[in-house]
């Protein structure tokens, strides 16, 4: 017998002072392991009802069901997952794929019930005692089934683009687009947010499949301006994207552009013409204004066999897409392609034809069954500050129009832009380019009423403007234009403390002690636009119902006159895609009006 054999019974005594590892009451207290995949938990406030858990479930154990107390809203379907424990195999793929990490599993594993249907339940809604359990399976840090980061878009560097109107954004190549498309979980939450409800998951799927013609077909079902929207859309869809909760939203806009970039223009025309009614209906429609609202309505109506004539005051069609958006964001030839497809449906566009001068609205009414007003907002608003009547104080829309015309006017070395929205950025960046071309340097100061984080322009516009040398000063209110011996010399601004009052009304509050002078040989006002309704004439203006400065329309875009519809920025802003949606609505409404009535004889 060795010494250790003698001592070992006593060495066990040292364990007396350690915490026991055995469970004192094993019959009642048997917790699952800390990362046990037990019964589900769902944080229903975090859950967005995207249904990705249902899609990944290998056993079809999950249903998406409506829950009374949860409302459907943009970015949240209002549905919540219900799990059938008769089918669940606790693989936890639903937890791993969950786009918001709302879904998890507790370490609880005991559940006894006499009613088999009790095991089909909505976690987080049908309350359970394990709902607040801290332990259980969570998706491990860094473990993701879907890509978190957006595929970076190739863009011209500031030093290359700063003196050029060449398009900045390169567009995805095939490989980049596939990678980005692969991040999409096809939940479709974005579809409701898109004003024209584009079939986003379906067209993104065509990129994964490499079936670009089908992609174009899907785009044209809801939007005849995919070249335009693929470049300049405000992409509100991306604010509803499930991927944005724990990563970058899918680059939906760039993927749309990628699809339309892959198919030849002639083939796009063929695809867009599919289903076109070749037999004329005999109905005639006049559309005033060849912007996105008017041309979308024209596309739908012409495709259905109705006669459409678009009257455009300016030399080329496109409206603000051509005369407002600078070429470096939307090249004219891409806009031309979209318009050409619309023309190929049989739409006649009469440019340089201003209603009220070249033809009267009464004539249009006499010669057509219906008329659409889609005239846009082409008049700049003025600040009306002292000195703003000077000839070198101009509106942004007028200047942008002149740039599109190709006028090569001289830009002074110093320019002040008043306004913090996207139009202000457009003109500031355009003038900065011209200054660089003419003087080799930039001297644009942009003053915005809003504070930096409240400015209305898109963040990327603000950042890119700064990269190109535009000096952006937030929280400045314009006070007066400074004029010396008839020449404009600068802009005086004061600090703007707040823009809105307690009730949320526009009521800027200034600190008069904080004054700045910005040198300016040219001042551009970009504080908003108005429509020019003068051509309507007195009697029609009287007859129409108005809502402040806008013609009143109903949900279908009808005015109070039975023959007249209105759409676009002039009645309902703010962007191209909203105008496209309105164009579809109006075409449908007009066609409803045509149904059952015979065409007028003209």
């Amino acid at each position: 017998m060795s010494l250790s054999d003698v001592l070992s019974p006593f060495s066990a005594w040292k364990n007396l002072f350690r915490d026991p590892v055995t469970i004192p009451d094993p019959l009642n207290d048997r917790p699952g392991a800390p990362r046990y995949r037990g019964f589900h938990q769902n944080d229903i406030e975090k859950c967005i009802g995207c249904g990705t858990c249902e899609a990944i479930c290998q056993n079809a154990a999950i249903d998406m069901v409506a829950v009374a107390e949860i409302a459907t809203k943009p970015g949240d379907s209002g549905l919540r997952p219900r799990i059938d424990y008769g089918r669940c195999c606790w693989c936890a793929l639903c937890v791993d794929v969950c786009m918001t990490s709302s879904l998890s599993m507790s370490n609880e594993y005991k559940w006894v019930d006499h009613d088999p249907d009790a095991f089909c339940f909505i976690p987080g809604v049908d309350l359970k005692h394990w709902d607040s359990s801290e332990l259980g399976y969570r998706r491990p840090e860094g473990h993701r089934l879907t890509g978190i980061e957006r595929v970076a878009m190739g863009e011209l560097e500031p030093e290359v683009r700063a003196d050029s109107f060449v398009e900045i954004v390169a567009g995805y190549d095939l490989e980049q687009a596939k990678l980005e498309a692969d991040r999409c979980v096809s939940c479709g939450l974005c579809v409701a947010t898109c004003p024209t409800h584009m079939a986003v998951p379906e067209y993104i799927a065509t990129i994964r499949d490499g079936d670009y013609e089908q992609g174009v077909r899907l785009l044209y079902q809801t939007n005849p301006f995919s070249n335009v929207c693929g470049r300049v859309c405000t992409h509100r869809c991306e604010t509803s994207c499930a991927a944005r909760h724990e990563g970058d939203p899918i680059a939906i806009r760039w993927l749309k552009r990628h699809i339309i970039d892959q198919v030849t223009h002639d083939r796009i025309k063929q695809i867009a013409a599919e289903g076109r009614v070749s037999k004329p209906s005999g109905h005639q429609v006049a559309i005033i204004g060849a912007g996105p609202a008017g041309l979308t309505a024209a596309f739908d109506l012409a495709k259905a066999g109705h006669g459409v004539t678009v009257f455009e005051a300016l030399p080329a069609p496109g409206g603000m897409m051509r005369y407002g958006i600078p070429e470096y964001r939307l090249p004219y030839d891409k806009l031309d392609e979209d318009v050409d497809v619309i023309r190929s449906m049989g739409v006649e566009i009469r440019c340089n034809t201003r209603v009220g001068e070249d033809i009267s609205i009464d004539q249009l009414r006499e010669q057509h069954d219906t008329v659409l007003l889609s005239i846009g907002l082409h008049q700049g608003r003025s600040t009306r500050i002292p000195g703003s009547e000077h000839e070198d104080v101009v509106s942004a829309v007028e200047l942008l129009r002149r740039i599109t015309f190709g006028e090569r006017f001289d830009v002074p070395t110093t320019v002040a832009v008043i306004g913090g929205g996207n139009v202000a950025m457009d003109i500031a960046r355009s003038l900065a380019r011209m200054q660089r071309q003419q003087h080799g340097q930039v001297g644009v100061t942009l003053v915005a009423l809003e504070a930096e984080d409240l400015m209305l322009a898109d963040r990327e516009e603000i950042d890119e403007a700064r990269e190109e040398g535009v000096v952006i000063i937030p929280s400045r209110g314009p006070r007066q234009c400074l004029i010396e011996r008839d020449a404009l010399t600068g802009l005086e601004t004061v600090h703007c403390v707040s823009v809105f009052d307690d009730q949320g009304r526009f009521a800027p509050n200034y600190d008069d002690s904080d004054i700045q002078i910005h040198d300016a040989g040219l001042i551009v006002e970009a504080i908003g636009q108005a429509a020019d309704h003068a051509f309507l004439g007195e009697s029609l203006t009287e007859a129409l119902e108005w809502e402040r400065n806008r013609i009143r329309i109903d949900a279908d875009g009808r005015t109070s006159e039975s023959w007249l519809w209105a759409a676009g920025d002039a009645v309902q802003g703010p962007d191209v895609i909203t105008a496209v949606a309105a164009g579809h609505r109006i075409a449908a409404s007009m066609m409803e009006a045509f149904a059952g009535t015979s065409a007028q004889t003209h």
Partner: protein
Amino acid sequence: MRDLYDRLKTAFPLGELTEQRPDLAFVTVAKEQLRSLLLHLRDQEGFTHLVLLTAVDWLEEGNFQLTYLMNNRLACRDLGVRVMLPRDPASMDSIHDLWPTAATYQRELREMFGIDFPGSPRVDEDFILEGWIRTPPYRRDFDTLKFSDEVFAPRPGRASSDPTEFMKQQLYPDKT
């Protein structure tokens, strides 16, 4: 673990060492070398205990991975020995003569993955799946949904809504 790995490498062609914890690491060895490596670990290196034997189905690569987890009680450390085998037909030498418990693991793997271990006691008898005639269920090409649909009656009252369609009904029902 690096010291052990360096010693083993002099006698066996091993893959990379994967150190998961200070007391847990994995090595890969060719199918033909497994038996002699396990014997060496048991008799020379103190890894006397077979903790478990399990498999992973690398369907895309056409392989099964077997993991023999060995424990050295005195040194308080574990070494996982991994072997890759072709998926079809999947067959591996039995080690039930080295550790009798291996027979049970091998019988389970035979049933759940369809990996054969010729000569292993009762290897072809049902383990827990009585009368199973389908694809072994742990193979990744086993379609659990199809199986559930065929074998179990659908639960009454189950229905699901598509988020896109549901949002349309709720938010813009009148539009086509």
